[in-house]
């Protein structure tokens, strides 16, 4: 049996088992997440060696049927999802979410996460606009469930706002796909260059990009996101911030690559919105008083940076910039998931998540603070992390083109991200006279291991960035 088929079907089967049999949910979820990681790695190795693969589902070639396109970019995203999923699963398996929802089901996380995983895998592999829309529907609803999981009043309100924003995004996306069908008579991804050639087609692509911008929380359509990501349980926030947002960004990148130079105006809008997001998110992160809110606003800024990179992608074949965007997505996913898990652990130890209260004399910094610091290094883009390699590629491509204003913007965004993350890291790196001699150390938990593991992965991928870059060479263009 083919890995792609298993990647899209096994998580969904596991989700059904976990939902029908709550007692076995944890074990089912862990096994499925592990199996998914194995399959993703096997597929990535095969694509890295043998090149991109395409498959027509049911034997019906596009545009009649739906195609899967498993290329380097898709494989990188699959591995990214699998890694983040592993980390979060370790955390949830070690410490089940407290009284999830109102029914007291401690295992409700698993079916929702597995459905998210199945939908993400299907999305990365899909080569069909309408099929992408359907995967977004699963993803959006599952994400609403994940947001509501903690069951608090603020979480429920945030989940409802998430649902409303997600529906608006879906509507725009669906309108765009319908218009694409009305213009070109087909909806497979190969139609994108044709769409970019006509007036109506460009409107269709514009609607699709607008829908994606809502779903990716791209400034100025990000209004729903900080509340949702900061009021959900930390494990859910890690998934939402690291993965779910990436789905929309991935499709935007895919469409930009397919559309090439013809979607210039759309890409310019994307780049400007990205720059706006970088500054806006950073400004709010600098002013946030709660740790989770800071991390959520930093997602707005980082999504902006990635959107900027996608917007500045010129050609499909040559540019280093889209590779930079892909690497930035990967590093942001790992670092942000680590950061949210670390914040969850810090909050658990401190009993609150106010930034001003991070300096506590009777508590030594633990593994969670360490993980946060490594993740911050990767998000800022300091060597030797994956974030550094991504930013380096981006700046390299921009300097080659002489696009100095954009270089300045990226550097400004970097300085700002260093500034707001330093608010936390400087307090975490305290020691010496600030800590009382008898200060206790926080105990080890599964969450520490998960956060450290993910943060270390972000660090290690910087050293081994040849791996993802070779994989990206096998991308269909």
């Amino acid at each position: 049996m083919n890995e792609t088929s298993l990647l899209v079907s096994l998580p969904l089967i596991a989700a059904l088992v976990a939902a029908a049999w709550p007692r076995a949910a944890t074990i089912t979820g862990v096994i499925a997440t592990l199996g998914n990681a194995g399959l993703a790695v096997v597929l990535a190795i095969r694509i890295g060696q043998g090149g991109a693969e395409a498959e027509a589902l049911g034997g019906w070639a596009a545009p009649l049927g739906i195609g899967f396109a498993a290329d380097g970019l898709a494989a990188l995203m699959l591995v990214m999802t699998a890694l983040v999923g592993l980390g979060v699963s370790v955390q949830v398996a070690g410490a089940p979410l407290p009284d999830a929802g109102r029914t007291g089901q401690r295992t409700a996380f698993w079916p929702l996460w597995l459905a998210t995983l199945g939908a993400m895998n299907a999305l990365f592999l899909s080569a069909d606009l309408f099929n992408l829309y359907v995967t977004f529907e699963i993803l959006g609803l599952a994400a609403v469930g994940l947001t509501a999981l903690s069951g608090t009043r603020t979480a429920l309100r945030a989940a409802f706002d998430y649902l409303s924003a997600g529906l608006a995004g879906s509507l725009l996306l669906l309108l765009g796909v319908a218009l694409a069908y009305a213009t070109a008579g087909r909806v497979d991804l190969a139609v994108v260059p044709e769409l970019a050639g006509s007036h109506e087609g460009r409107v269709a692509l514009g609607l699709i990009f607008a829908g994606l911008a809502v779903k990716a929380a791209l400034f100025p359509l990000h209004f729903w996101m900080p509340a949702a990501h900061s009021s959900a349980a930390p494990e859910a926030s890690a998934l939402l911030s690291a993965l779910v947002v990436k789905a929309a960004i991935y499709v935007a990148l895919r469409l930009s690559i397919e559309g090439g130079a013809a979607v210039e105006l759309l890409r310019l809008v994307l780049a400007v919105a990205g720059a706006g997001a970088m500054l806006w998110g950073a400004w709010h992160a600098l002013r946030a008083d709660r740790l989770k809110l800071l991390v959520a606003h930093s997602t707005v800024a980082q999504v902006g940076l990635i959107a900027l990179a996608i917007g500045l992608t010129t050609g499909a074949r040559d540019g280093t910039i889209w590779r930079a965007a892909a690497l930035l997505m990967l590093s942001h996913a790992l670092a942000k998931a680590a950061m949210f898990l670390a914040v969850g652990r810090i909050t658990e130890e401190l009993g609150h998540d106010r930034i001003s209260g991070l300096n506590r004399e009777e508590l030594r910094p633990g593994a969670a603070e360490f993980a946060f610091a490594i993740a911050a290094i990767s998000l800022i883009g300091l060597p030797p992390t994956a974030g550094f390699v991504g930013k380096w590629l981006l700046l390299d491509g921009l300097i080659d083109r002489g696009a100095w204003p954009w270089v300045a913007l990226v550097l400004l965004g970097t300085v700002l991200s260093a500034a707001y993350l330093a608010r936390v890291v400087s307090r975490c790196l305290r020691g010496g006279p600030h800590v009382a001699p008898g200060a206790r150390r926080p105990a080890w938990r599964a969450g520490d291991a998960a956060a450290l593991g993910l943060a270390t992965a972000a660090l290690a991928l910087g050293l081994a960035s040849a791996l993802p870059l070779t994989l990206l060479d096998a991308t269909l263009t």
Partner: protein
Amino acid sequence: MIAFDLALAAGILLCAVSALTRRDRTASVAAFMVLGLLVALSWVRLAAPDVALAEAAIGAGLTGALFLRAARRLGPLRPAAGRTLAVPAALVASGLGGGLAWVFASASPPAIYAPLVAASLPESGVSNPVTAVLLNFRAWDTLLEIAVLVVALLVANLLGSRRLVPVSLGEMTLPFARIVAPISILLAGHLLWQGSSAPGGAFQAGAVLAGGLLALVLAGLAPTGTLVVRGALIAGLSGLAVFLIAALGSEALTGSLLGYPNRAEKVWIVAIEAALTLSIAATLCLLFTGFEKRKTS
């Protein structure tokens, strides 16, 4: 016929305005349901009977029922604070709508998809092109749509929607339910079987079946134990399970995900649709009745 079409269009607009402006939730939902029926009629006029059936059964019928249930839980409408925004919102919406209508009208689609479907229809195993697209050419879309329903069911379960406690609706309810329920089963079976050659299929059949089940629930004839709810939940999940197993099974047999074996396509399609019908009916029913037992009394 042009007069009828114009009247239909005017009626649709009128219902939409009424649904948006009523100060009473129940009246709003009633206007929405009439809107759904009129839209279904317009689908008939557009020669899309499959969509018309789905719109009438799901868009007007079950969505309306879900809205009514939600309206009951929400209580009376409070005076809206954001009334001042109504005019700008209406302007933006009509501007956007007008622009889109213009773009859609100016698009002249090349005939690509319909000829492809027509050419491959004999190999699809069914003679209704809509079913051929939904269950064969683009079956993967349909599978994922069923997954959307499953996730909706899971989220509703997570949020712990309270279970419906039917109140007595008068003495005609019982005879009504006793007639409607068997008819809905016959009708669902008919729609399911007919779907392979004429308008019909799993979604429509499932919605009709759910309607019959709801008549039983509202008449107090349906069992309400925790085990029943659990069974219904598992029935709701089973459609996706059968579809996924069929997808992997067909890959084992033919080497292609959702590629049904030659000459057995119709058997596979009808079997999948039968499972989907039951599962869609159970899902829609559960979304209406809720899961959790009322805590007191």
